[in-house]
């Protein structure tokens, strides 16, 4: 190594830790930095990050394209909403029930759907969203049909004698942030585990994985269920934040938004999904004040993506991360 190289190494310090610290501080201080509207946009981004994380496990790591995510999101939203309206249960009960119910619904749907080949599987998952909406519309005694559920109480926590309600936007933001962080950690743990390696093997070459003893079918089903659990928990946040749930929660637009987050952010990367949620949901939500501009910006975003970032923004993020880390 020459002297010049050494000098360069000294000059280019590893800035990753400081940057990470800044990001954490910004995330924690966001409600006090930006306006209430910014906080609101961030909450929406965090809510959609959950189903996107789940979808990423399916699309990005296991290689299964699914449009069913909005169905599980809707199931979670209704489950949490109904529990909160009828029984006034604490938020963690509602969120857990929402996740479990979504996961439980994924089992009987996944068993036949995963027997199908790639394209048919996608079409089948699309059907789940439509069926979900039809049930929400027509099972009036439970879902109140098109009227939907309204006046869903703000999330509250009850721990022994202590109880408090998450009433304001700021406190809701912190709750969503905490859940989002936990979900991100959970995904990180899954993809770092040997199972994560098997999922990638299935994505890369299913028959080869199978020939090496990997029970691919069982993994796919399990990941399908796990991804639904993420969506269900996201749905519970959605119900509690908006305080209304209608059959429109089951809409293709949501499924495609979740897919855009994953593919645009960077399928098979965690940072890509976090970034994608902020960009594709946070940003468009923030631009909602100017509806014309919003759709144009959204469209431009997608165009840029398709032409210059075919693998999403994750490779760019990674390069930046390596660069500030002092790597050449």
């Amino acid at each position, binding site marked *: 190594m020459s002297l010049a190289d050494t000098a360069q190494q000294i000059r280019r310090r590893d800035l990753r830790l400081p940057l990470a610290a800044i990001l954490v501080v910004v995330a924690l201080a966001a409600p006090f930095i930006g306006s209430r509207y910014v906080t609101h946009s961030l909450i929406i981004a965090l809510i959609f990050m959950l189903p996107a994380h789940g979808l990423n496990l399916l699309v990005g790591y296991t290689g299964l394209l699914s449009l069913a995510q909005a169905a599980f999101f809707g199931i979670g939203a209704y489950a949490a909403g109904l529990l909160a309206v009828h029984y006034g249960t604490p938020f963690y009960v509602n969120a857990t029930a929402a996740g479990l119910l979504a996961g439980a619904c994924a089992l009987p749907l996944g068993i036949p759907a995963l027997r199908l080949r790639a394209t048919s599987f996608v079409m089948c998952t699309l059907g789940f969203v439509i069926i979900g909406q039809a049930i929400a519309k027509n099972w009036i005694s439970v879902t109140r049909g098109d009227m939907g559920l309204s006046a869903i109480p703000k999330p509250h926590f009850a721990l022994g004698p202590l109880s408090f309600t998450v009433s304001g936007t700021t406190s809701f933001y912190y709750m969503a942030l905490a859940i989002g962080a936990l979900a991100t950690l959970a995904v990180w743990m899954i993809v770092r585990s*040997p199972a994560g390696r098997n999922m990638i*093997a299935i994505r*890369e070459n299913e028959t080869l*994985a*199978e*020939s*090496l003893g990997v*029970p691919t079918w*069982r*993994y796919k089903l399990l990941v399908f269920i796990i991804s639904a659990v993420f969506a269900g928990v996201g749905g519970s946040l959605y119900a509690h934040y908006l305080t209304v749930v209608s059959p429109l929660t089951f809409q293709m637009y949501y499924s495609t938004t979740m897919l855009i987050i994953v593919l645009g952010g960077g399928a098979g990367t965690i940072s890509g999904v976090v970034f994608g949620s902020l960009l594709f949901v946070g940003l468009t939500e923030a631009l909602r004040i100017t509806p014309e501009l919003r759709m144009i910006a959204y469209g431009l975003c997608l165009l840029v993506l398709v032409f210059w970032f075919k693998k999403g923004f994750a490779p760019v993020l990674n390069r930046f991360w390596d660069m500030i880390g002092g790597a050449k």
Partner: protein
Amino acid sequence: MTGLPILEISKISKSYGAVKAVNDVSLHVGRGEIAGLIGPNGSGKSTFFDCSTGLQRPDAGTVKLDGQDITGWSLNRIAREGRMLRSFQKTVVFKALDVEENLVIAGQMFTFPSLFSTFGIGRLSKKRISGLRDRARELIKMAGLWDVRHQPAGNLSGGQQKLIQFASMLMPEPKIILLDEPMAGINPKIIERVIETILYANKSLGVSFLVIEHNIDVVTSICQRVVVLDQGKKLVEGLPHDIIADERVREAYLGG
């Protein structure tokens, strides 16, 4: 080579519509044996392989591995529980993953006791993986791939990829390996190396083999017994040199 054969396939048949791809074929591989399976293109060798390894379900017949009936088991179960591994002609490696990762994946299902245990990231899980990594490195050295172990497998030559595939199949300490044209499309230098590796696995690790191969020199130099298929049926079976001299075999290959 005493006792029960390691693999005993009886009266396997498989049809696609009106075509009988495999018609009542029986075959066995003795313990520690290297058996060859040859035949002209379209003689049903690959279908026979697929039916024996769970990739396809045979219409009739049974497959016994180490005395256990495994007919109808899935490909992954036969690999995992039966420790009978197979190669493919075309799909060889996980191209996007590096050489070492390829081997670690190959060993995982044999090291973790259940599907759920693979989700662990605790100390036990890490210990299992580091054990796999050590074994993977040994096999990588043996296969002469040490210098490229961190390269994406897809960047390597066809021959090197075959060696990776071969090393991957040795990860789980298999009882028997079925090779589908291991020498197809690789250069003579690597052929030597693959032969060495097969003989090493056979002699030192006690792995039995059933090999589909077109290269007749390879067949005569490694196989102790050869079975010839023609038009879905077993034509003849015997010592390599007798098979080469056999009139019926010549006719099958030349006369088509």
